Every structure is written in structure tokens, then in C-alpha cells.
């Protein structure tokens, strides 16, 4: 039979080209809002990182203490005359630093353990399962508290504490799809073609679970930001005078009746960021899920 004949016979049932993940993310409501909200907060953090805050977030101006929002101080000043907007921007940066490092550590280690326990049979699975279950049994905040109080108190200790708590989540989330991937025809076909286990793992299994990891990273970021804020609220986070969203809320809690802006600003930034990350996670999950192809 000729090539033309084949093309004619098979052209009809060629499925249409799939939309790109990015397009589908932009097309979904939660994807749009997620991008906008996280974009705003990340923009603030970026400005503060390059030193473009309206005022120095640390230097005190006692003559300007507890000013309400005005043109000079857009979000007012706190008890020590520090600009609340500048401090919130710097606070986001330090919270973000903790969250990014924490999620990076837990995503890399968690995915590694999850994939290993899913891909290599029972020998690795037993011990890894036990370890994961032990870590999983700790309330996240408690383990982070314990670690943060035992080790030297700086932002990295906090990040490590949060990372340890989130490792089991990545182990669980990646192990299950690897278990089912292992039994799929294309992984079996790869064995039939004489591919080594390492090649199958890195070239065929990992890329196929990457979407799941990406979504989990986004969602874990929002939890990590909250946990970091909770720890700094309890006085175990980034040490002063570096501003952190949690400690700013803590300092403002006695002023809430008289100087509401001192609490509203960091609280609002925190809420916007966490809601944004969650929406982005939802949007990504839908955009990356091939089953949602038609209703994007």
C-alpha cells in the first residue's frame, strides 16, 4: 500500500492539537486570579529586595509614631514610627525566603523518596513508609516549634523545620502515581526495548509526575508561608529587627483598636498571598490535568 493511501485512511481520526497548559491556565478564572494576586505580592517582594521600599523598613522615627494612613505614609506607621507599607514589603520577602527554601528542600527530598519507594519494589518501600508515617504523625507546627527552639534561631532553621514537616506530603503525592505508572504499557514497553531502570526512571517516570509536583509545590508554598507566619507570630521565626509578617501581626495585636492599620497591612498581604497561591494551585491542577481538556 502506498504512503498516500495510509495518509488518507488515517487523516480523519487524528485528534486536534492540544491547547498549551499556559493558555488553559490563563483561560480559567482561578488561574487568572491566582496569577494576579501572587503577582502583586511577588511584585512587592521584588521591590523590597532591590531596596525600592518607600522608607527604610528598620529605621525608627519616634516623631512619626502611630500615624494613620496618609499621603506621606500610605499605610501609616507603627509604634516606633516605622513605615508599615515598607515593613510589609520587607516582611513578604523574608516570609517568601523561608517558604521557597522550605518547599524546595521538601519537594526535592520528598519527590526523591516518593519516586524511589514507588519505583523500586518492596525493599525500599517498607522502611520509607515507616519513616514517612512517623513524620506524618507530627503536627507541623509542633515539629517546627521544637526544631526552631532547639537549633540556632535564624530563618534557615525555620525553613528546615518546615521542610521536614512537608517532606511526607511530597512522598505520598508522588508515590501513588509512580506505582500506577510502573504498571503502564509505555513503561513496560521501555523495559522491552532494553532500557535500564535509571533511564526509565529519569526519562519516562519523572517527567510524567512533574505536573503533580508543580501543583503540590504551589499549594505547599501557601501552607509554608502560613506556617512561617505562625512561627514568627509565636516569636520563633525570623529574629527582629528584620520584619516578618507574623511578628508584625503579633506586635500590632495590642494596637488593633487604636491603630488598626498596623495589623491590617501585614494581615492583608498574608491573606492575598495565600489565597493567590491556592487559586494558582487550583488553576494549575486543572490546566495540567489532561482529563479536563474539553472544559478548560
Amino acid at each position, binding site marked *: 500500500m502506498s504512503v498516500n493511501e495510509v495518509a488518507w485512511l488515517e487523516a480523519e481520526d487524528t*485528534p486536534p492539537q492540544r491547547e498549551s497548559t499556559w493558555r488553559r491556565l490563563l483561560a480559567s478564572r482561578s488561574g487568572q486570579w491566582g496569577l494576579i494576586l501572587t503577582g502583586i505580592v511577588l511584585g512587592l517582594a521584588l521591590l523590597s529586595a532591590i531596596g525600592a521600599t518607600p522608607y527604610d523598613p528598620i529605621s525608627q522615627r519616634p516623631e512619626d509614631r502611630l500615624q494613620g494612613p496618609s499621603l506621606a505614609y500610605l499605610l501609616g506607621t507603627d509604634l516606633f514610627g516605622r513605615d508599615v507599607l515598607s515593613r510589609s514589603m520587607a516582611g513578604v520577602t523574608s516570609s517568601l525566603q523561608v517558604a521557597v527554601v522550605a518547599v524546595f528542600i521538601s519537594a526535592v527530598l520528598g519527590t526523591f523518596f516518593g519516586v524511589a519507594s514507588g519505583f523500586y519494589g518492596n525493599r525500599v518501600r517498607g522502611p520509607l513508609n515507616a519513616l514517612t508515617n512517623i513524620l506524618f504523625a507530627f503536627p507541623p507546627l509542633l515539629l517546627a516549634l521544637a526544631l526552631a527552639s532547639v537549633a540556632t534561631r535564624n530563618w534557615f532553621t525555620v525553613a528546615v523545620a518546615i521542610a521536614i514537616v512537608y517532606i511526607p506530603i511530597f512522598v505520598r503525592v508522588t508515590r501513588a502515581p509512580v506505582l500506577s505508572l510502573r504498571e503502564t*504499557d*509505555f513503561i513496560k*514497553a521501555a523495559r*522491552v*526495548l*532494553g*532500557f535500564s531502570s535509571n533511564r526509565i526512571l529519569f526519562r519516562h517516570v519523572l517527567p*510524567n509526575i512533574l505536573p503533580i509536583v508543580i501543583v503540590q509545590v504551589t499549594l505547599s508554598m501557601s501552607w509554608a508561608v502560613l506556617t512561617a507566619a505562625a512561627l514568627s507570630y509565636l516569636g520563633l521565626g525570623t529574629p527582629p529587627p528584620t520584619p516578618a509578617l507574623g511578628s508584625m501581626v503579633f506586635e500590632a495585636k495590642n494596637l488593633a483598636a487604636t491603630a488598626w492599620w498596623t495589623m491590617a497591612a501585614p494581615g492583608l498581604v498574608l491573606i492575598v498571598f495565600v489565597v493567590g497561591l491556592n487559586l494558582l494551585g487550583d488553576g494549575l491542577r486543572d490546566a495540567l490535568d489532561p482529563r479536563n481538556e474539553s472544559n478548560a
Partner: protein
Amino acid sequence: MTEPLLQIEDLVVTLGARTGDHDIVHGISLRVQPGETLGVVGESGSGKTLTMLAVMRLLSPPLAMSRGSIRLEGEDLAALSESEMRGVRGRKVAMVYQDPMTSLNPLMRVGDQVIEAMTAHGVDDDEARRRALETMARVELPDPERTSRAYPHELSGGMRQRALIATALANDPTLLIADEPTTALDVTIQRQILALVKHLSDEFHMTTVWVTHDLGVIARLVDRVVVMYGGYIVEDAPVDQIFHAPQHPYTKRLLASLPNPADDSRPPLAQIPGRPPLPSESIEGCPFRPRCQEAIESCLTLPSLEPRLEGAVACWVPPERWG
């Protein structure tokens, strides 16, 4: 007689279970000569696919090869290390799978998958790239340049099966095992794929083993047919003899169950009453005895595969005594 390309001796495949081990393939022996096209026919559960997986050494627990030997070009496959065995899979022995819809990695371009089949066996990138396009042209994929950049979901079932065949043929294997490569395809595409594989194995002198449950599929493709039932080979004969003078009652019933719209004298879809034995069942004597209309007293003893006419058959009752 030349040395067989593939020689299976007394192969036993065992299913390990807590309640005890069950043999699923009961000591079968099989030779495939170089250049020969062999059909292995049997119902689901007859052990045909397991036999082929044993050849690839891809049985995984609870399944294991518990006895016998498999030789490829005289070399005992059981003696090879795992990395030597990887050199056999995909290079000397290739396998085409049942389901083309799911046998390609959905995240890799089709061309890259054909290329990887070669680079994994040490072919350098440029050479693999060039040969991939050649191979894709050989399997009659339209416009190989363009198709190689497509993802599997952009191709139809028939094109995916061609792409899959391209990955299998990339390294010019000496033995191709085609395990029901057309069951997932519709009939017109099915015929094209069958014709393609036949054409390729003739042109490149590739020894081919067709594994199928459908005698009709392989009638015009193979030189010899091995009929399996319940983990035994019950008949092994040239294709003409299988179709015109079946020596085993099971072969005869299989042939009778082929739909033939032209023949009004038969029911449209004849079937063999009963069901194949479960791995856990032990049947005394011949495995087909409970479903066999010709069964006699001596069938309570297991018949061995004995030469008869041009082939061999494992049955106590010759056709002239069938009712």
C-alpha cells in the same frame, strides 16, 4: 537442519501464591528456525504471552520461570547478567505490544522515542536521528519529518502502532515477537498493520513470532502454528495442516468457531462449551478433557506431544476416531 534461532526446552512458569505455587506453563518445548514465521495461538490464559515474557526475561514476581532453558542463537538467556539481557531486549529480540494507545510515552515526541530506542543501545545521536527517519519511513508513517515531531496523542491508533513498530525495529532485531499487535485497532487498520509487519519481516529476513487468540488473523501470515491450551502445547504443525487437517480436537473446535458469513450450515458464532482451566485447578490427564467431545478413558493420562503427519500433537484420539 540449521541451529534454531530460538530454542525453548521444558519451560515451566510458576505463579507463586501464599496458598502454594501453581504452574501456569507446564514444561513446553518450542523451536523457531531462522527466517521462519511462527504463530502461537491460544485463548487468554493459555500461557502464550507468559512464554514470550519468559523469553524476554521480563516475568516479575509472583511469576517466575521455575524450570527449563531458553536459548537464543545457542546462548542460554538465563546465564546472562541483567545488563547483558538489556542488550538482548530491543536489540536482538523486539516485541510489539497489544495496545498502541498506551504503549508510547505521552510526553515524548514520537521521533525522540524511536531515537531513544537506539541511543539506549549505544548508537550515537546523529546516526540514531538519521536512522529513526529511515525506520519511520519503513513502517510507512506519512511524512516522517513531521510525524517525528508529533506527540503520541496527535496520532491515530494505526499511526501509533506504526510508531511503536518503528521503536521495535530501530535496531534491526533478529527476532520479532508480535503479541496481538492488532487487537486494539479497527479492522481496516488491522489489515494494514498485519500486511506491514509481514512485508517488513520478509524484506529484512526477520524471524517473527505472532502471538494471538485469533486463528483468522494469522492464516495468511505464518509458516507454522503452535496451538496452546491451559499451559501446554497441544498441537504444532505447518499452517496448511492446521487449517485443513487439524489433529487435535481443540484445534478443530477453534477453527469451527471462526465466523464465516458465507457458510449458512453453521451457527453464526460457534463456541466451545465450558471454560479454560484456572491456574489453581489441577485437571487429571489432558487439560482439554473436560471440554472435549472426543474424550476417552485414556485421556485421564496426560498425552505427550508426539509426531503425527507433518507436525506433532498431544492427543490420544486420532481424527479418524472422532465422532
